[in-house]
């Protein structure tokens, strides 16, 4: 399984802070597993994706293996 974390405001949109999805998990499988509003957010450039503790330079290349943690990172708060 892959643990997917919705950080910051994404957790409100996704309706959960964390979900478990089957491994392996690629970008299309991730988009298919979340609700429409969340998928729209994830497609935006300003949302970054980390897998196994590293921020991906190209999130479309996501390829999470069994036991990996995937973190969905919206822009951080100002102020």
């Amino acid at each position: 399984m892959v643990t997917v974390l919705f950080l910051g405001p994404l957790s409100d949109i996704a309706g959960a802070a964390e979900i478990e999805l089957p491994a392996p998990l690629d970008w299309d499988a991730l988009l298919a597993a979340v609700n429409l509003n969340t998928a729209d957010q994830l497609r935006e450039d300003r949302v970054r994706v980390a897998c196994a503790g590293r921020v991906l330079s190209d999130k479309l290349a996501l390829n999470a293996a069994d036991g990996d943690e995937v973190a969905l990172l919206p822009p951080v708060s100002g102020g």
Partner: protein
Amino acid sequence: MRDVRLLAETFVPGPALTDFTRANPDSGGVASFTGLVRPGGGVAELELTHYAPLTSSAMEELAERAQLRFDLDGVLVWHRIGSMVPGEPIVLVAAAARHRRDAIQAVDFLMDHLKSVAWFWKRERRSDGWRWIEPRGQDHADLARWQ
């Protein structure tokens, strides 16, 4: 020396600065910045969440970058996570250096970069409930100063 901490509990900047100054006895000066939860606007509580696997190492790397860029004897970066009330400190950054300019510039540099390297999200609680704080355009301008 380098003292980087993510703190789940409240802290008092004064004694932290006293200890930091004592830990750098050869420095001519210590500069610091303390960021506080600003009162007003009906905010009752501020909650700060982060993504630990990225935040801790990013803060360490940032402190190291400041040490490489400026001539510092020591650097301190403390950041709160969790729930805070107005008036409580969120962040304390300090730099000890032989020369004043290095210390002051390092503090300026650390504060400008902290938000871009560490993943922090904040939400505020008012009488009508919780609301997330939006990203801010000024942050990019702050970073451009150092390029």
